[in-house]
């Protein structure tokens, strides 16, 4: 699914990176995330170990936490891996950038939504083949979301 019509070109325009895509992983911002990740992973394992020793010492309730903390640690790793995988996809243009979309929705004045909607309608019955439907519909849903966000933009402004 290389080119998904006009929709894709308009939607995902990630800043063209210099050099290989993985470079973003060593940006300071991402290094911070990696650090947080490592600290929280080992921190949670340590908490699990601590609960394990408490459990051995006779605190029966600690058994639950003994298994819970490593589970959370594993979950953190899954979260981290998926986030990085998504970021790769966004940067390769295989996926629209949700943050960019949110930022754009905030910047656009109310009048601009009309054109965004029009584009969605055009894209709908367009020359897209059967196999493009899925992506297209995902994109349409995404446009609708943007539209709705612009419409009730403001009330929850502080919470994001």
């Amino acid at each position, binding site marked *: 699914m290389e080119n998904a019509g006009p929709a894709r070109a308009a939607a995902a325009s990630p800043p063209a990176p210099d050099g290989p895509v993985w470079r973003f992983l060593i940006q300071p911002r991402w290094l911070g995330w990696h650090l947080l990740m490592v600290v929280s992973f080992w921190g949670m394992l340590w908490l699990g170990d601590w609960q394990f020793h408490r459990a051995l010492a006779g605190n029966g309730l600690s058994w639950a936490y003994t298994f819970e903390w490593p589970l959370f640690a594993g979950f953190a790793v899954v979260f981290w891996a998926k*986030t990085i995988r998504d970021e790769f996809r966004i940067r390769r243009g295989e*996926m629209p950038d949700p943050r960019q979309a949110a930022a754009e929705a905030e910047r656009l004045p109310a009048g601009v939504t009309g054109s965004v909607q029009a584009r969605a309608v055009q894209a709908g019955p367009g020359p897209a083949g059967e196999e493009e439907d*899925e992506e297209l*519909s995902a994109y*349409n849903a995404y446009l609708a*979301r943007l539209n*709705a966000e612009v419409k009730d933009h403001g009330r*929850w402004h502080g919470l994001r």
Partner: protein
Amino acid sequence: MRAAVLRYRVMAYVTGVVLMVLCFVGIPLQVAGYPAVAHYVGVVHGILYIIYLLCAWQLARMLRLAAKPTLIMLLAGTVPIMTFIVERWVTRRFINPALDGGSGQAQPAARVVR
């Protein structure tokens, strides 16, 4: 999609209520010298929180949320009252638009994906 939303919502409220019981009933009782409530409710919350994590995570993937809102959603289950606030926020900002997009937009949208 709707099923995932329902699961997330149910778990958000259940986890939120149990966490409030833990924090506003269990902990004061523990401080007063009756630790039993806090202990058992604590374990229950721990188990519920795991289920909440799975439901919230699944919904976040479906909505294709960015890392930050996803993290807010997941961690809300550990802060008293936050689940309710975050559930309202997620509904308004992500769930409702996505559901509208699934039914109101161009025809192909209604059929596939969500």
